[in-house]
């Protein structure tokens, strides 16, 4: 089955990408499978300057999921371009750079640097920085800010496609999606993690030094699916669905509600070779169901009248 997809100008050999922050820069997973079996790799979030991230402990396991407060630890965009990208370029796979900044200008600057690099095939804009200037609310919770950031990135991105990654920690995700599209987003990816918390009843302490953290994994799939369903019906740009995908059937559920592609996050921790066979498994499952193409299946959810 032809599994090629195009996501707002980004060409993928199949609809399976790996989610930012859960797959390193991709090369960490090379011993466990052929990276060229993937549709694309979204690398760990990049900021202008290196970041050490949050204090330890910064991960905790919860039922069917996990919490993380890594805090975008990364070596900075220059290091990425100089020391990581050259090795990634030798792999024939779409590389999506995930951008993290705390104001629209900084986002624009990051976009300019990365879009100039031949080996970067798309930009994914992570809008969940708590914006101190705007009174502490996360960027991604304010539609007007989302639009501004997207515009700033688009201006500097040239021909490189721009995907905006939305947070589910909002009252109305459709409003955020529309804001990103108004700002010029070529595609959207959703969802990022849900705000959560875990505490230890015995020693009366939070399990994560940062106290609150991002929930991911199978536990969040129903929320992710709802968000993707709502957004796909409201906007015209392609949507990439993610949140709790841990099987081919999970991935197809996102396609069914309208996603063009999917990303695998926490499931990369269930076993490091998980993502490599997902596209083949999705194709096999579609064939089993008598479906002839992804296009035919996409968005074909039958809703009650």
């Amino acid at each position, binding site marked *: 089955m032809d599994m090629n997809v195009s996501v707002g100008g980004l060409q993928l050999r199949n609809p399976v990408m790996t989610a930012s*922050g*859960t*797959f*390193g820069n991709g090369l*960490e*997973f*090379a*011993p*466990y499978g052929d990276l060229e079996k993937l549709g694309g790799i979204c690398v*760990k979030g990049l900021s202008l300057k290196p970041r*050490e*991230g949050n204090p*330890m*402990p*910064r*991960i*905790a*396991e919860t*039922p*069917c*999921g*996990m919490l*993380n407060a*890594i805090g975008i*630890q990364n070596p900075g965009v220059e290091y990425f371009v100089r020391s990581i990208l050259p090795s990634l370029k030798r792999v024939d796979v779409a590389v999506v750079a995930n951008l993290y900044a705390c104001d629209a200008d900084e986002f624009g600057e990051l976009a300019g640097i990365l879009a100039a690099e031949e080996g970067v095939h798309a930009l994914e804009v992570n809008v969940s920085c708590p914006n101190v200037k705007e009174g502490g609310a996360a960027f991604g919770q304010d539609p007007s800010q989302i639009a501004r950031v997207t515009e700033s990135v688009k201006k500097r991105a040239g021909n490189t496609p721009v995907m905006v990654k939305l947070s589910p920690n909002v009252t109305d995700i459709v409003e955020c999606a529309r804001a990103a599209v108004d700002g010029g987003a070529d595609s959207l990816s959703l969802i990022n993690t849900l705000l959560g918390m875990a505490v230890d009843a015995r020693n009366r302490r939070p399990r994560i030094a940062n106290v609150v953290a991002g929930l991911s*994994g*199978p536990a969040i799939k129903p929320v992710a699916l709802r968000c993707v369903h709502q957004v796909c019906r409201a906007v015209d740009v392609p949507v990439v669905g993610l949140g709790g995908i*841990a099987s081919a059937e999970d991935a197809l559920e996102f396609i069914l509600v309208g996603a063009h592609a999917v990303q695998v996050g*926490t499931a*990369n*921790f*269930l*076993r*490091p*070779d998980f993502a490599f066979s997902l596209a083949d498994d999705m194709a096999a499952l579609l064939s089993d169901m008598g479906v002839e193409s992804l296009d035919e299946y996409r968005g074909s959810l039958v809703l009650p009248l």
Partner: protein
Amino acid sequence: MSLRDCRNVKVLDVVPVGQSKRPGDFFELVLEYPGWGGWKPGQFVMVRPVSWGPELVWGRPFSICRGDEKSLTLFVQRVGRGTERLSQVLPGEDVTIWGPLGNSFAVEPETPTLMLAGGIGIAPFCGYIERHAAPENLKLFFAHRMPLECYPYAAMTQKAQGQNMLEAQPEDLAGIIDQMGALIREYADGGLVLCCGPTPFMKTAQRFALEHGARLQVSLENRMACGVGACLGCVCKDEKGHHTQVCTKGPIFWADKVEL
């Protein structure tokens, strides 16, 4: 070609070790040989039984204790949800493992080497003694809270020289610390010291090593999600204060190069 991989292997046996308050607190997990002839002492594996489903997300890291062409043996202490479930796996069950992971202990066959183990921290030393070219140069100092037969101590001291101290009361701790200090001083001149145990135990060893100028390596047991260096959930601080992955840059660090 990397030596590392991920595969499903069968459980060959689950062997309870010793008698503690609850049976099965300590056990050996014997797995089918994954084909990793080249594992090095101090390396670990991530283990995740297929039967876990999504309710337990992460694999769990365990040091390689013994390995030959037929099997790979891990020595496990039951402490929480994962190790509880692991103690219930049955022979014949499929377990996903990935590895061998991490760096390894310095092996210097000619150097008199002191191994300081606290509790389950004894586990990586099984593999160390097994793979060491001159076990007659090895001494194991073991501080423990559970009865000695809960640990593979007897098997290890058949090859290496051993000494153990039970920490039954809080006062015993002072004796253990004194003994550690004296031993580290003894090995400071031309020796090598290796340590694995609870963080306060390793901190004490680090303090003595820095005081006496001893060469010390510590093996860290941070919580891990991926085990392959990707999630950045397992980090510790290096000597420059940078967060560095324990799973790939460690689990073993020179004591003067890591903040405990």
